[in-house]
């Protein structure tokens, strides 16, 4: 069935294929020049010692020395790596849960909905790039933040609850992480603008008749949330999860990224910097891959 039309339209199909390649040509050239080469070079560099000279740079093969340096010699790297990865995991989950519920609320009809949506989307525009890392970039500001934190430790939102849970013996590490996220709800809200919009776009495609039918059959709102809404937009969880994790890696307030830049620009140690970056990158890729596979299994596809 496939063969016959293909045979007949060989001229047009060929022309279309050529035109397609011409259209994506800029990407191919850019990808080859500015992605493949630096990518491979950076991989190679992580196994070498880079020596800068006049008008050129030499790379001397040094085996796994840089990786050994990253894990065993550098005082900060392993600590920062584990901290950032843990933070990434916790915050990504928090962001997904938060944006899911906020998007459900924003999908309801009420006065001022457009305004609220605009406010929630504002951080996407503002907090990319410099704005995020600004506050803690500077020693004076860091000092000031410390003072403010010292002065306000008593007024944490969850403090009362924490004390109660601790005295009753429930407060374990897991709870403390949850409280940390709740105390930092500002960071979560700032990072979830895009995810909220993506969820909202999915919610709008669910036909209203489904909810009506469920309501008539005696389904409560809570049940229809998990039986209708959740499965209908479950594929968007995957999109949002990948977006969130990747976004987290590129944030400029990521301490590990700062560390990598420091090793590269201040210590001029390109080899070690590459090795550290590659370790981080591989772990993140593995993490994204594994979690996406797991989520993909749970996703319900309607077609």
């Amino acid at each position: 069935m496939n063969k016959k039309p293909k045979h007949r339209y060989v001229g047009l199909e060929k022309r279309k294929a050529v035109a397609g390649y011409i259209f994506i040509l800029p990407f191919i050239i850019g990808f080859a020049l500015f992605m493949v080469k630096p990518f491979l070079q950076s991989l190679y560099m992580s196994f070498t010692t880079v020596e800068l000279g006049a008008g050129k740079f030499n790379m001397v093969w040094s085996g796994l020395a840089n990786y050994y340096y990253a894990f065993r010699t550098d005082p900060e790297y392993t600590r920062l790596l584990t901290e950032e990865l843990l933070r990434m995991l916790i915050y990504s989950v928090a962001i997904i849960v938060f944006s899911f519920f906020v998007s459900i609320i924003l999908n309801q009809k009420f006065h001022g909905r457009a305004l609220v949506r605009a406010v929630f989307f504002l951080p996407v525009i503002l907090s990319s790039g410099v704005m995020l890392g600004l506050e803690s970039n500077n020693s004076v500001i860091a000092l000031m933040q410390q003072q403010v934190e010292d002065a306000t430790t008593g007024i944490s939102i969850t403090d009362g609850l924490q004390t109660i849970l601790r005295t009753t013996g429930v407060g374990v590490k897991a709870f403390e992480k949850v409280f940390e996220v709740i105390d930092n709800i500002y960071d979560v809200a700032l990072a979830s603008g895009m995810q909220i919009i993506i969820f909202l776009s999915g919610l709008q495609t669910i036909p209203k008749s489904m909810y009506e039918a469920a309501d008539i059959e005696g389904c409560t709102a809570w049940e229809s949330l998990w039986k209708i809404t959740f499965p209908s937009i479950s594929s968007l969880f995957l999109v949002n999860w990948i977006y969130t994790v990747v976004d987290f890696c590129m944030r400029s307030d990521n301490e590990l990224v700062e560390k990598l830049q420091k090793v590269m620009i201040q210590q001029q140690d390109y080899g070690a910097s590459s090795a550290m970056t590659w370790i981080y990158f591989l772990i993140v890729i593995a993490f994204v891959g594994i979690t996406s596979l797991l989520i993909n299994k749970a996703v319900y596809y309607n077609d």
Partner: protein
Amino acid sequence: MTKIKIKKESFWERNKKSEGYLLKKKLTSIFVSVARFILLFGLCFLILQPILNKISVSFMEEQDLYNPIVVSIPVHFTTSNYELAAEIMNYSKGFVNSLIISLTIAVLQIAVCTLVGYGFARFKFPLKGLWFAMVMLTIIIPPQVISNSLYLHFRFFDFFGIIKLITGNTLNLRGLPVPYYLMSAGCMGLKNGLYIYMIRQFFRNIPNDMEEAAYVDGCGMFRTFVRIMLPEAKPIITSCFLFAFVWQWTDGFYSNMFLGTTTLVSTSISRIVDSLAAYMQRILGAKVSISVAQSNAVLSTGTLMVVGPVIILYLFAQRQFVESISSSGIKM
């Protein structure tokens, strides 16, 4: 006109007939909307509070900052913070530079990304899946991974050894905007993979008929694209352009790496407190320590001056920002 007789029943009568169901329903809906209002008001306040706070601080004189009675409305209203921040950041020059660079970069990136996105959406060609996987890869790879290598790439720039052959030396392109323009022309700028993805998604949803009709009438591939497909894609192109502009405006990473020597608002804001110290030292002739409060005021003012244009743009073009994402139908 015939009079339709409706027996007016009060709420309570109707409630009685429904055996309390109506009251329950009414109370629940009131409770839900009150709870929703409190929650949303709190969250919106949370997001807006830093900006509001910065606005109030930026109009305060130094003595107000130390005064515990003054919280948000300044007693000594002043605009001197703005003058100082503008002076330190070299604001007018930075503004013009940022505007030019952001505009040109955004136009270039979106023009190229539209071509590529259209190519991926509308044509069948061998290895298409592979190339699209590469686009996804550029979204996933953090620019930090390749930054150190790019750094050296442009420090010792050469084009297949040609430049070295002619001048005997490699070019140092660092600090010049050229590399960044080259990268943008090759779809490797800030978040370009995302734009390609969004534009492709949009083009895929346009029905085939129009294109085929154009082909049948003898319109070429490129002319079809310009005459028929581009006008259709105006909304998505506008919104991608806005994103490209805004993200470029506030971007620190690429700006620091490639445009370090150009005065831009986004790079000068990250150095503003250090510049303040240097400025004070130059004026007073002696090394002074800047008070925390004053550096905070100047930093807040500077931040406002950087994000101000973006917020104004957002106020006017809010629909274009948000709706295109919902309409492009992002799916896996």
